[in-house]
């Protein structure tokens, strides 16, 4: 494993209006690694990816990618950096008015002056890598969920990025497609020598393919480690998360006033001290 850090989060805080999402996150990710960021729904995992992509800016701290602090870049520099990044959106986000082929060719046509014959070869190669060379003529509406995500994956690696980000790549897939996407992430990372960041809450699938795991809870990194360490972890939160227990450190109930009070049940005088 390479030790040179590609991405560094230093005391990153972020807030949507008054709502504090991240409260001082520290992370490093090295080149060639597949890193998973796990956490409950709404814990700010996706925000981490958007910070790396420069879509939003941290309220405090810095996010640096390949030595550049993302929020200090001007628009032109940011776009240059983004060309070296790929992002797989939750549901693929394929351009619905373009065929699978044109979707994959999109970035090549926008950013390069390659001749159309070469673009054709490159696109077919990328589609071949995800096993969908035969589906190049289909429109996104004709693709199944798993296929759409594979085309989207081919599209995001079109320009051989140094960094791939996956936003919930496993959501809503059947077990076979899920396995396919998982192994694709691992193999493409190794073959292209890039770094992959997975934001997911699919524990079992991701633990099989990642090198390192960060757990995000309440806006901070609650736990981290290799898959082995995580599986052995005795931390109550990690344990609950890995084994999918209903109640634990993460309560089943959203914060609320007492149940009895909500239902307007006047507690009998004798029980006034209770709850």
């Amino acid at each position: 494993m390479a030790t040179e850090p590609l991405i560094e989060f230093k005391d990153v805080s972020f807030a949507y209006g008054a709502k504090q999402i991240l409260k001082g996150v520290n992370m490093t990710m090295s080149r060639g690694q597949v890193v998973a960021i796990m956490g409950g729904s709404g814990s700010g995992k996706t925000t981490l990816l958007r910070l790396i992509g420069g879509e939003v800016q941290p309220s405090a701290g810095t996010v640096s990618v390949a030595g550049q602090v993302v929020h200090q870049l001007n628009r032109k520099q940011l776009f240059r950096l983004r060309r070296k990044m790929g992002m797989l959106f939750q549901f693929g986000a394929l351009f619905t008015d373009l065929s699978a082929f044109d979707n994959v060719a999109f970035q090549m046509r926008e950013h390069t002056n390659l001749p159309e014959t070469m673009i054709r070869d490159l696109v077919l190669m990328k589609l071949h890598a995800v096993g969908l060379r035969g589906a190049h003529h289909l429109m996104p509406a004709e693709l199944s969920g798993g296929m759409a995500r594979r085309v989207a994956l081919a599209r995001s690696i079109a320009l051989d990025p140094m960094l791939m980000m996956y936003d919930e790549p496993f959501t809503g897939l059947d077990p076979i497609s899920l396995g396919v996407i998982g192994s694709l992430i691992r193999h493409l990372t190794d073959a292209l020598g890039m770094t992959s960041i997975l934001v997911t809450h699919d524990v079992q699938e991701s633990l099989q393919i990642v090198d390192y795991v960060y757990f995000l809870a309440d806006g901070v990194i609650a736990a981290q480690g290799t898959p082995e360490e995580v599986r052995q972890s005795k931390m109550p939160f990690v344990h609950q998360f890995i084994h999918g227990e209903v109640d634990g450190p993460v309560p089943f109930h959203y914060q609320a006033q007492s149940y009895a009070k909500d239902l307007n049940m006047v507690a009998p005088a004798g029980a006034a001290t209770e709850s």
Partner: protein
Amino acid sequence: MIKHIVTGIQAVGHRVIDGVWRLGCASRFFLLVLLNSPPSFLRFGLITREIYFAGVLSLVIILVSGLFVGMVLGLQGYETLQKFGAESAVGTLVALSLVRELGPVIAALLFASRAGSAMTAEIGLMKATEQLAAMGMMAVDPVARVVAPRFWAGVFSMPLLAAMFTVMGVFGGYLVTVIFIGVDEGSFWSQMQDAVDFRYDIVNGVIKSCFFGVAITAIAVFEGFDAPPTAEGVSGATTRTVVTSALTILGMDFVLTAFMFRGVS
């Protein structure tokens, strides 16, 4: 009691501040679209595609409506004018009302509901399905790639559609009054040509439709880009596009007319 008045005033203030804020957002977005337009002119294929969707696909409704509006104008105009024995002026009536007002305004209203709403829905859905975000992450500016071509296609299509609407309307009026009723063909055309001035009537009508084109497409792309990324968000934005466009067209028409035809007989 006083509390109610205060909350009432607060509600008004809230609305006003919200409205002004949105107007500011829209203006800023409009400027952004203009700034990002040059690349889309270099790739004219993008605009051609959008002209197809905004202009060509609106053609049927524009032509058919134009024909009927002209026919009704001819019929009503004839009914009234013949009482004064001036039925040969029906051509003037049809042409002037179409060229000055009805052509640009009705074509713009139809364009807003046919093409403007489609534009909003398309951009709104692209936003809701993260296509715009994906484009941004691929270092392609969605404003330059998606919004600007649509905007210019709309601006370009609107005057052409309005002109076709007007021609169809005049033809409809001709059909009803000359062919069906039997008004003299020569006086129909000559009185019309005598009354309709190229500079004051036709050019002003075209200028009007250009303004409407800018207003409709600016509203449509802004609402689409600004739509909350949910199903209700997109449908609400689509409705707002049609309503706001209609009000803007009619309000603008009054202002433009006041400027153009003031002091002119």
